[in-house]
């Protein structure tokens, strides 16, 4: 069939019938979208839709029940009755889901005409379609992922989700109530001191919390890549433990670690000779939290914080209805047209529209997301202030 601009896929992205199908094909093409790995995916699962109430709130409540503490039996005389046991205390907190949008994409009719003339000249819209997908749509979807990363890391490392980046609103979203927050200091010495006994501190903190909670959960210690390299891997106790166990593994005597090459101090050997050799030692999860926001390097990880938390997911990404979809589908001006495509497991909404501007039209694209990563394991989550020694 002869190529025509009218039937080109790029032209039909804004079509109210075919548009969502074409946008969906682009969104599901990994070569076009080139989505990078994102932190929130490793720490949060995709949760449910929380409807927005007529009062305007999309509120959620996270409940947690502390396990019942074990005890000993009470001695009794024959036929004596006893006292019942206390049940686990229930904790809860609530918050509300907020809305976000990526930078908008607008194209006036004359700019469009220029582009269509190009399509005609080349006899294919493949290049323009790929450009649109990789340079316009993909970065806007990626912005949504960075937003979720930012909120996930702030929530995990401060127990508060406040959005204070971007060009729009700045607002609090939710926080673990102060009385439920568990924050401890580093131990006898700050961990930045290479002579600090980090390994003992980690085990002491974990065992103290296990006793307090009444349950021995498998745990992980989340730290940043910089912290792992510059603090943990430069700690004297860690280095000696790796070298000693490495020597033993090589069938050599334990004494004389000073002759062991520094090149054995690797993440792999840390996991093999430290994490795996100390019974109950938490899994070290090394994160890469840094991101580029508006050409500036931003590190949302709270400085000096290591997070001790249960293995597995920290919570769920909850989402709510996006009002634009209802307003413009039901009440949009007939001179305009709108189409909507969900993406990112339903977290984001791509809204394409054609809006009159004078005697001509403008094409618009918005990527919207009303979703927030919500912590649900807060009762077993400990922030370690590694820069502050115990008082």
């Amino acid at each position, binding site marked *: 069939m002869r190529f025509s601009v009218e039937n080109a896929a790029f032209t039909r992205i804004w079509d109210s019938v075919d548009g969502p199908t074409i946008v969906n094909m682009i969104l599901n093409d990994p070569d076009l979208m080139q989505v990078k790995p994102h932190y929130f995916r490793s720490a949060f699962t995709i949760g449910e839709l*929380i409807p927005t109430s007529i009062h305007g*709130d999309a509120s959620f*409540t996270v409940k947690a029940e502390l396990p019942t503490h074990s005890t000993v039996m009470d001695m009794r005389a024959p036929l004596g009755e006893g006292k019942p046991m206390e049940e686990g205390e229930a904790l809860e907190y609530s918050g509300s889901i907020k809305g976000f949008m990526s930078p908008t994409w607008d194209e006036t009719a004359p700019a469009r005409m220029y582009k269509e003339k190009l399509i005609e000249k080349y006899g294919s819209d493949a290049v323009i379609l790929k450009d649109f997908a990789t340079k316009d749509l993909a970065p806007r979807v990626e912005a949504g992922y960075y937003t979720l990363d930012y909120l996930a890391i702030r929530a995990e490392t401060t127990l508060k989700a406040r959005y204070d980046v971007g060009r729009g609103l700045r607002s609090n979203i939710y926080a673990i109530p102060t009385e439920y927050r568990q924050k401890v200091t580093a131990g006898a010495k700050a961990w930045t001191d290479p002579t600090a006994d980090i390994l003992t501190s980690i085990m002491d903190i974990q065992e103290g919390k296990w006793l307090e909670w009444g349950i021995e959960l498998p745990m992980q210690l989340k730290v940043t890549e910089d912290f792992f390299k510059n603090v943990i891997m430069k700690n004297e106790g860690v280095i000696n433990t790796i070298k000693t166990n490495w020597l033993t593994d090589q069938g050599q005597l334990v004494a004389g670690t000073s002759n062991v090459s520094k090149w054995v101090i690797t993440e792999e050997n840390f996991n093999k000779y430290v994490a795996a050799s100390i019974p109950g030692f938490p899994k070290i999860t090394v994160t890469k939290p840094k991101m580029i926001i508006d050409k500036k390097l931003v590190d949302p990880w709270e400085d000096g914080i290591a997070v001790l938390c249960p293995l597995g997911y920290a919570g769920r990404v909850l989402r709510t209805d996006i009002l634009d979809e209802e307003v413009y589908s039901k009440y949009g001006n007939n001179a305009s047209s709108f189409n909507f495509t969900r993406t990112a497991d339903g977290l984001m909404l791509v809204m394409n529209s054609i809006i009159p501007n004078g005697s001509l039209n403008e094409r618009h694209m918005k990527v919207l997301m009303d979703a927030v990563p919500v912590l649900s394991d807060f009762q077993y989550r400990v922030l370690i202030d590694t820069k502050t020694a115990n008082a």
Partner: protein
Amino acid sequence: MVEQKSGGVFLGRARIAKKSTNGGARHCTASFQGMKNDLVYILWGGVLANPFPGRAKLFEGDMLYQELDDKAEHPKLYCLKTYEAAEASTGTTLKIVKDGFRHIPFVGDTLMVAPETIGGTGTVANVTAKKVSKTTDGQDIWELTLDAALTVAKGDILVEGNAEDNSMLVKGINCFAPQDYDFVFEPAADPEDAEDFENAEYELTPVIGFTGFIHRMSPIPACVLKLNQSRFNGVWSFNALNASV
């Protein structure tokens, strides 16, 4: 476990009756047909910086001011609250008109007679007590006790003041409520407080213009009426992207 609402079981019957003062719906849009261009939502929307501190209502056609920085980013949103004096007064008792279509005053509000220019200065006073009362001719009023004397003539329009610099809190008008908003939560005292996660905040996106009948809109002080672009008596028209005033 995540639930939408608070947990808890109460095997009995709870009494949650509560007086509601939401007010009525007052339609004030002027029905000129044709291509009006009012219903265009503004950039970002905003967190309302001066929400009503209790149950109250922002009405269709009510005016707001979105403050943006020089790059049109980081919005702050203020609503214009207006009150009409029911009687002249010179002391610390202020009587303002009360019906179902008015902004509701609250203890803690800072009020002033609307200055000659939007955002201008004047004498401000804080509301320390309020009660429902009637004028001698039987009109429903809010009788407010103030912590400072205000000189007010009958029919004067009062606005929200800023006690820090004795000025009108709202510094401009550039957007409008396209429909009523009911305020039903207890808001944070300072919506910008980074540590207040407990109390409510209101986020909304007003529209850039409004065309309506002035007598049905919330009382408009003279300094704001100067913005009116309509040349029809009794009709308000203003579009912030096409303002000639």
